[in-house]
């Protein structure tokens, strides 16, 4: 089996490279026809959430993907991917962009401001270990995690890694650093 990497826009090639280093087969999910290929894991990469939401809407891929996630397919969602996965967006921020809405969290987009607010941090992730490098690019913030979602890591008090069953949502970009531990965690789900 293989991991499907959503490849509508953004940093999908970087996820494919990290997964290949771990020996995982991947392919790019670009159109509804690709959904017929066999895969048992899904990566929702970073990029621009409004662009990705808009393309999803046009391609009609959200429904089928949502069904598979609800049925228990492991998913790794980073940055814009986390926004796709969130059940709720902060009220002032919700432009009605279509989403998968399978994770019990409220997310605020661009929560650290514009590019000058982008930053790098190192923190412990529960079940993964210490000193995990975390790159935040115009990142979202998890403002509220519901009872079904377990917070795995915090930076400056904000939840930045959340797990709900086999769904893993990250506000940062593990695919941009050389540390493979979070991708390993994803492959173990």
């Amino acid at each position, binding site marked *: 089996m293989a991991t499907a990497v959503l*490849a*509508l*826009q*953004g*940093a*999908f*090639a*970087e996820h494919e490279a990290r997964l290949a280093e771990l020996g995982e087969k991947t392919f790019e999910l*670009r*159109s509804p026809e690709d959904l017929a290929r066999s895969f048992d894991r899904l990566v929702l990469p*970073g*990029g*621009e959430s*409004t*662009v990705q939401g*808009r*393309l999803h809407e*046009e391609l009609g891929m959200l429904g089928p993907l949502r069904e598979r996630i609800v049925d228990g397919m492991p998913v790794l969602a980073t*940055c*814009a991917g986390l926004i796709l996965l969130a059940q709720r967006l902060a009220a002032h*921020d919700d*432009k009605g962009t279509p989403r998968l809405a399978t994770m019990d969290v409220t997310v605020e*987009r*661009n929560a650290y*401001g*514009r*590019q*000058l607010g*982008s*930053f*790098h941090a190192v923190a412990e992730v529960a079940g993964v270990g210490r000193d995990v490098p975390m*790159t935040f*690019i*115009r990142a979202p913030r998890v403002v509220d995690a519901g009872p079904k979602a377990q917070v795995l890591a915090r930076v400056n008090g904000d939840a930045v890694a959340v797990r709900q069953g086999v769904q893993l949502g990250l506000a940062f*970009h593990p695919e*941009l650093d050389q540390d493979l531990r979070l991708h390993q965690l994803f492959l173990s789900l």
Partner: protein
Amino acid sequence: MAKDERTSKATIPAPEPERAKLNRELAQMLKGGVIMDVTTPEQARIAEEAGACAVMALERIPADIRAAGGVSRMSDPHMIKGIQAAVSIPVMAKCRIGHFVEAQVLQAIDIDYIDESEVLSPADDVYHIDKTQFAVPFVCGARDLGEALRRIAEGASMIRTKGEPGTGDVVQAVSHMRLIDAQIRHVVSLRADELFEEAKRLQVPIELVRSVHESGRLPVVNFAAGGVATPADAALMMQLGAEGVFVGSGIFKSGDPAKRARAIVGAVTDFNDPEKIASLSEDLGEAMVGINKDEMDLLMAERGK
């Protein structure tokens, strides 16, 4: 007052070392996307709604700059702020080549990306901006590998082809993309001991030539720009190896901007799918009226080498 004191006073504190990496990484998030020129908040909203991954805020699109002639400068910060308030995607803006104070102003208003652009009138005919002194990222135009690597050495964290802006004629963007690609393949083919001579020939630091030799690509993201007017133009640039596309005059100079914008976004996503591009290309209304480079007095790509 000593000269170095003056410059150090004027500049914002030097950026922390990880800034350069973060700035290259923002460009990675834009990959597979379309960056659209907009002149008003309304156009910015149309662009965002159509799926633009960023907008370039400017007072006049290149076709109108070309028509108006005269000196074209950085846009009014108030106008740029209006566009920043209108959309949630990254907002870029242009400064003149070498005009580091315009760049300081753009950084001061918290712009996401600065385009040190040949579309505006150059402010310096020798020196580009020392972009390593800024926290905010820069994108620069290039016609060949030497220009691209010189801009990267100066601190650019993203490259785009120069093309020939405001023409609706993709020929220059195609030849710039092909040339950069061919030169990269050449550098890859060289022996390690031949790289020094190549660095001298390209007038760039040896470290950057080594990086290209080892990776087979530019060390930063490379977009296509200058003359893209149709979905097929955008897909052509992607098939030639661009990682995304800038569309300047092509959208808001056309008959139905919202529809054309959506179609170009779709063509960049599915650039290898001719049937999809065919359906996206239907009934788009009138494309911008093009001008051929042989009919022009001003070649913007000649600015800043």
